[in-house]
């Protein structure tokens, strides 16, 4: 299991509690499928993924994107993805990159502002907390991956 520091936990809560899952989930997953098209291999039954114009409004992808955000701390889903669905673990890093970008797009400068407020270090440097936010999101997906082992 991944060990969380108090700071990481607070950064993560600050970010995720402010997110609209119904918006961010679909955007993160569809961005992943567009920017890293080989990830589409796992979504054969999800309908038309032929191009970005088809991926973005695809309701099956949207629903799955929302599910992904809700399910990030459920161990049984991690086992499912690794053992039944055989998802290459690298894909979690790709999704994590896209999720971070979507969060940054939505929050803008607040992305770093929220982090600063959540950060307990009195001399926190903007980018260090930014880095903390980024690695926290990555770590959350990594823990999802590790839960299966």
């Amino acid at each position, binding site marked *: 299991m991944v060990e969380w520091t108090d700071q990481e936990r607070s950064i993560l809560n600050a970010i995720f509690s402010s997110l609209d899952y119904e918006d961010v989930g679909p955007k993160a997953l569809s*961005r992943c499928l567009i*920017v890293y098209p080989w990830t589409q291999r796992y979504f054969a039954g999800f309908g038309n993924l032929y191009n*970005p114009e088809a991926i*973005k409004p695809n309701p099956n992808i949207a629903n799955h994107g929302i599910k992904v955000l809700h399910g990030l701390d459920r161990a049984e889903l991690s086992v499912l993805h690794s053992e039944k669905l055989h998802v290459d673990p690298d894909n979690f890093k790709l999704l994590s*990159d896209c999720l971070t*970008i979507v969060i940054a797009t939505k929050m803008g400068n607040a992305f770093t502002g929220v982090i600063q407020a959540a950060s307990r270090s009195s001399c926190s440097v*903007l980018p*260090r907390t930014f*880095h903390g936010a980024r690695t926290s999101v990555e770590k959350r997906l990594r823990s999802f991956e590790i839960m299966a082992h």
Partner: protein
Amino acid sequence: MTQHLTAKDKQVVTTFWSKIASKADDLGAESMLVTVYPQTKTYFTHWKDTSASSTQVRKHGITVMGGVREAIGKIDNLTGGLLTLSELHAFTLRVDPANFKLFTQCMLLVSAIMFPNDFTPEVHLAMDKFMAALARALSEKYR
């Protein structure tokens, strides 16, 4: 993986660049590689201050971004166009090419913050491909 930039990729990149070019200095200064990935500080031991607000850090971000600007101007022949820069990085600076990927990640993330409406998935894809091609061209002279 070797990917080639398609005509569409180049068009998306140059269009996006024309929208953000006036803010390129800010983008560079904010793509604070040194502070987000502390291991990169090893290249800057001659700087006293390596925080995000450091003038040297921000100035260097602007310099690097100038390189990106140059590359965009040479998008039709990155390998040939960036030979001198490649030699600089390979023989003088000796930057481990893994760091090109880190810079890309920072730059794309700051792009998302600064230009949320323009940094669409399609633009993200083209910029990611472009930066990978740029990194390959920069690594050309390494060995």
